[in-house]
């Protein structure tokens, strides 16, 4: 247990080794260190840890920084240009409409039996009650429904997939769009036991992907570093491209109830094309929000 004096000195050791203390304060620390081998060891450890920081040099800024920025500025300004065009088009349309109204007014003046249309499409839709709800328009299933098999969100199709529908619901496109009975809404759809068991569009699960990598040939010990052939979801890089960086090999979205889970997978190869690492990440968010959980 360090003494109070030792604790006081250690709190200033980093500033001491970086020569940031006043002369008096530095002399006091030096005097303590001369008589305290434990604090001297601490000083050595701090010096060793901070040494790389002192040698830290800025890397080379990428050469395409300016080009990328100009492209983004242009993209940022593009909507303004479109708005100008929209205004011009709207102005032209309004002019044409005005002329048409004038002409129509003149014609009606000559046809007294004609009445103005009072059955506009909007009015018809509102009266018939067939307007589309935001939920239906967005193809978001009601709470309690299972995975929504839409073109955008892929539902698991592998036999081993464990995304079981909630009791009382049938995972068909019809139920995905329609509200289920009230009894089925009392409990949300259970989440899958593990994201690793969620299959992608080709029916391959992350767990299968992992096990494929984990298996190694026992007959040839020299080849132990070489990964087994990977499922189609992992794209092997054919041409070596140093330096090795992670490349995206999997990106699947799965909707369960009101939540969307996005699965990302990345792999990294070295210069010789040998697989060095695989990592996955899952982000779950509300279907109507973007909060990552």
């Amino acid at each position, binding site marked *: 247990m360090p003494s109070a004096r030792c604790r006081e000195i250690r709190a200033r050791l980093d500033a001491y080794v970086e020569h940031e203390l006043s002369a008096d304060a530095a002399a006091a620390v030096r005097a303590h260190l001369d008589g305290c081998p434990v604090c001297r060891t601490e000083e050595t*450890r701090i010096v060793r840890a901070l040494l*790389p920081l002192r040698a*830290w040099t800025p890397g080379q*800024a990428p050469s395409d920084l300016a080009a990328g920025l100009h492209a983004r500025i242009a993209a940022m300004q593009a909507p303004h240009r479109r708005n100008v065009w929209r205004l011009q088009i709207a102005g032209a349309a309004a002019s044409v409409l005005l002329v048409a109204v004038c002409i129509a007014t003149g014609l009606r003046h000559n046809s007294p039996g004609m009445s103005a249309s009072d059955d506009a499409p909007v009015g018809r839709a509102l009266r018939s009650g067939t307007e589309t709800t935001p939920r239906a328009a967005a193809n978001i299933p009601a709470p309690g429904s299972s995975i929504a098999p839409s073109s955008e969100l892929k539902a698991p199709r592998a036999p081993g997939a464990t995304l079981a529908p909630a009791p009382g619901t049938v995972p068909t496109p019809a139920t995905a769009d329609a509200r289920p009975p009230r009894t089925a809404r009392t409990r949300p759809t259970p989440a899958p036991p593990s994201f690793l068991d969620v299959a992608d569009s080709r029916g391959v699960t992350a767990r299968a992907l*992992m096990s494929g990598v984990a298996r190694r040939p026992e007959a040839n010990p020299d080849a132990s570093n070489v990964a087994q052939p990977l499922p189609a979801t992992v794209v092997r890089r054919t041409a070596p491209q140093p330096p090795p960086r992670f490349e995206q090999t999997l990106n699947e979205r799965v909707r369960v109830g009101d939540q969307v889970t996005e699965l990302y997978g990345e792999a990294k190869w070295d210069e010789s094309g040998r697989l060095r690492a*695989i*990592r996955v990440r899952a982000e779950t968010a509300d279907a109507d929000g973007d909060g990552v959980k």
Partner: protein
Amino acid sequence: MTHGHVATLADEDGAAVERFVAGDRAAFDELFQRHSDYVYHIVNGVLADQDLSRDVTQEVFLQVYRSLPGFRRGSKFATWLYRIAVNRAVDAARAVRRRKWTSFTPDLEQRADPSGDPAGRADEQDQSEMVARVMREVPAQYRDALVLRYYREMTTEEMAEVLGCTVTAAKVRLHRARQKFRECYERLYQRDTRA
């Protein structure tokens, strides 16, 4: 020139800002040329990721492009710019930490190092690469102080100006940041420190 925010419209940055606000878009290129490397280094120091740093650096200048018309006269452009860069970088670093990856192949990662010995690795690796690796482990809120002090070699006063805090607060922040860096360094290179 007094410490803090003073009228600096006479300097080159100030003149360029004036021209940009007056409608001269080329003045923005001038500001970019003058500061882009510096901003990139701050951002990359915090993020330790070149691709992400490129994006964030561009976002910093996009924000500058949008905000320059409202830039307060009398403020120092460089300080304002670096503060944006630090804040953007720290935000991006936090976002990266939220998206935690699960590695399935730590053994393969280790095998990438031929010696497998951290001490040997330390000798072989570039020091900056080692720092980048440690920095990725340091909590985002501590990285900015380390970057400004060690990467950009700012004084505590300059740091305080960029970070928007007092000199005392900057010293405390730097002290805690060093502690965190040391913890992460020793965790990553534990065998090295035991030796």
